[in-house]
């Protein structure tokens, strides 16, 4: 056991540190295609004070430290060889449900849906139903990435529900934000309470400015009713125009457009809209009636909304395509080099046209590498559109993997050179957006230097810190090389 391992064990307890390869190798890659390296040691803090001490030690020995939540995303911020890997999933307590201030306070590693379930026992819920990706995410990780959530059209982004945060800074000091910051009586009730919105600095920063250790999040009473609608359209333009009409009327809680990939089973049409409405029974019925009116007026053909309901309640994307998950997800060793972007809603058709042209122009490469289109799906926000460009490459084929990453780079460059912004920034997308941010990127870099002079915390993530990370695996040492 190295002296670093021993010193980490002294902080968290010997059972919560491992430098065994069999353990370390399991912390190299999230659910995405980007391959990281093997950390030197894995440490499992159980308290905020542990996190603080670990970061102070990392500064002392000048060892990079990477933070790991549940690793259920496609973020792919490459872990570096020999680093300290700090896994936060044991910090998963639900500390306080505060119905007076309509807030819940959890440790960073609490699982989003488990928190929601606990609130549900009292008839309450988190104001955001959970991220649009996979469903066993931690609260802290989801906030740090600022994931695009379900319910985007009505409930907004993940970060919108944050009230206050507790964060350990790169020097090991512990800060609280918003109304919690008052050390002599702070109550976690309001984000915009004590000067600048410090929480905003950490939301979406992917842990470059600090480690979120505690989150206080807004909660609300569960709505009485959920209503669903499913429509097909003869063209992408028709569906996109209908979606904008629905946005203007604020009809949908969650509005999903399907513009590419396999068509839903058993129906006809070129593009499709799933509409989920949550409200009081009277309001939900009224909103649903309005949705039907708008969709029908703009040429939509009503479909059986059971697929929409199953998708919403079962958290399985396959139902968006009216397909059971066992046949949809089974038996495919494919991986997804996902590209994402917020777009103006009136640019959806232009974007879909680009993607379809790309397919045609690269048909030969697609065929050679076995590339599939999983989806060009859009989660609509109140006023914009968030596109998931999910292509699939065969995971067994390293050449296909490289081609998949190239496709992602092409998509990202096209989008961010025009009107797109990535939302949560995955490592592979950073190189395509950060240099385009001008003075804003300079400010981010200056903040990073000021807060983390040793470049200890998640270095390279968001291209901040010493070496930028392009999300393709440092030095090509991943198992795809």
């Amino acid at each position, binding site marked *: 056991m190295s002296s670093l391992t021993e010193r980490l064990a002294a902080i968290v307890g010997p059972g919560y540190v491992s430098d065994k390869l069999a353990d370390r190798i399991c912390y190299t890659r999230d659910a995405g295609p980007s391959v990281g390296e093997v950390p030197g040691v894995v440490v499992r803090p159980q308290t905020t004070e542990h996190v603080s001490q670990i970061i102070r030690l990392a500064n002392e020995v000048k060892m990079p430290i990477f933070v790991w939540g549940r690793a259920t995303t496609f973020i792919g911020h490459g872990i570096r060889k020999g680093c300290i890997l700090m*896994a936060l999933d044991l910090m998963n307590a639900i500390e306080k449900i505060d119905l007076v201030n309509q807030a819940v306070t959890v440790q960073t590693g609490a699982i989003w849906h488990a928190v*929601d*379930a606990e609130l549900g026992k009292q008839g309450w819920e988190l104001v955001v139903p959970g991220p649009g990706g*996979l469903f066993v995410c931690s609260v802290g990780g989801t906030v740090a990435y600022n994931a695009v959530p379900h319910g985007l059209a009505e409930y907004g982004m993940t970060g919108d529900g944050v009230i206050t945060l507790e964060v350990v800074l790169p020097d090991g000091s512990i800060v609280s934000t918003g109304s919690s910051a008052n050390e002599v009586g702070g109550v976690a009730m309001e984000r915009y309470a004590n000067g600048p919105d410090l929480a905003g600095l950490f939301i979406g920063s992917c842990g470059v400015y600090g480690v979120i250790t505690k989150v206080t999040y807004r909660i609300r009473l569960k709505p009485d009713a959920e209503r669903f609608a499913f429509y097909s359209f003869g063209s992408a333009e028709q569906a996109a125009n209908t979606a904008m009409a629905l946005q203007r009327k604020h009809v949908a809680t969650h509005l999903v457009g399907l513009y590419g990939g396999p068509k839903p089973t058993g129906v006809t049409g070129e593009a499709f809209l799933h509409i989920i409405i949550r409200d009081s029974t009277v309001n939900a019925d009224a909103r649903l009636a309005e949705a039907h009116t708008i969709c029908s007026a703009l040429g939509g053909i009503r479909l059986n909304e059971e697929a929409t309901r199953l998708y919403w309640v079962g958290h399985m994307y396959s139902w968006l395509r009216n397909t059971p998950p066992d046949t949809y997800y089974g038996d495919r060793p494919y991986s*997804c080099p996902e590209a994402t972007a917020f777009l103006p809603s009136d640019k959806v058709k232009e974007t879909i046209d680009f993607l379809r042209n790309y397919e045609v122009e690269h048909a030969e490469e697609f065929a050679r590498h076995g590339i599939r289109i999983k989806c060009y799906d859009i989660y609509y926000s109140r006023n914009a559109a968030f596109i998931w460009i999910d292509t699939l490459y065969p995971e067994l084929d390293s050449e296909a993997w490289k081609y998949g990453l190239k496709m992602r780079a092409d998509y990202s460059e096209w989008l961010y050179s025009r009107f797109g912004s990535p939302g949560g920034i995955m490592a592979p997308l950073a190189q395509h957006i950060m240099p385009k941010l001008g003075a804003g990127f300079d400010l981010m870099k200056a903040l990073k230097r000021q807060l983390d002079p040793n470049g200890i915390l998640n270095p390279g993530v968001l291209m901040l810190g010493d070496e930028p990370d392009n999300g393709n695996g440092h030095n090509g040492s991943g198992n795809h090389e």
Partner: protein
Amino acid sequence: MSESGRAIDALKNIVYQCNRCAHCFDLSWLGDGYNKCPALRYGIFDSYSARGRFFIARAVVDGQIEYDADIAERIFACTECRACAEHCFKYITTTDIYEALKIDLAEQGLMPAALAAGLSDEGGLGEHHNVYQGSPEERLAWLPDMSRVDKPAETVFFVGCTSAYARQNMALDTYTLLDQAGVDFTVLSDEWCCGHPYLSAGQPDKAVAFMEHTLALVEKMGARRMVFNCPGCQRAFRDDYQKHTGKPGPVEALHVVELLAAYVKEGRIGMERYRPKVTVTYHDPCVLGRWMGIYEAPRDLLKAIPGVQLAEMARNRRDAYCCGAGGMIRYDFSDMANLAGADRIAEAEATGAEILVSACPACVMQLQQSRQKTRSKIKVMDLTELVASQMRPLRTID
């Protein structure tokens, strides 16, 4: 390494299917309690989870890591409860990967020490043909008489090692139930272990040899059916024999609760009222439930007993939490088994039930031990015991 190469390499296509989503960690994505995997609860590092084992398998396949004792611990510290497979986002049969890894590890002499000793050909299962190192004479010592031993019959009651040596009351209860139900059955004097422990240890060839010993005796009796009270034994003959030989199992393999539930439905047997009324909860054995899909037959039997009220645990049927007895982990990871058992006892207590019922001798034994360790007041019994006290041929009921 065998001439055919490492077992895991043949499954590379499946190893690569894991998308690392972590649905195998727990039931939180369904808004349920945290724990689903007893190994992850025990080991706490991801390497003990299904996702972690797939990371390891992929690293082995890709030549990034060599098999060693650390890997062996993480692969063998698995109760084979199959909860990970049940909720896999990609519908991967995760246990096929564990099995291949175990075969490779066993071949390289990396089987955990106590398990290796327990199954060895010298002083272990290989010599004694049972996992308790009991003598052949003891195996049928629980029998009331020898009238049904080695008699040609339609059905063979396969007793199993745990019933024969450690929980003889279960053997006797099953025997009595079959007798009272009018089943034409026999018991084998030279019954060997079903071979299931070898499967958990990555030695399928030895398992098949043990199964074939028994099947030869079954054939000799002219039987067309085997009945079990142990799901592990049943699975060996129902599913594993075919999987590892490519040949269909020559006889029907039924759990006794399946048989009795069918008899209740047919009106062939009935139950006396349980007095006073009692609330029971049912623990789904992993092998009976997730492995073989038998969830309702035991519940139907319980519901058939007047005066018995069934209160389900929070995690039941496909979501049921393992008791800790599976995968032969008690040999080398008894702490893990005890942790799982204690969790399950606590969950059973939370239902308010007075009796925790299961349908597996290994589960019952584990839960009884956990009950003692946790000083729980809940009574633990096998379903055969409960039914044996209440079942009567229909004509004798008032």
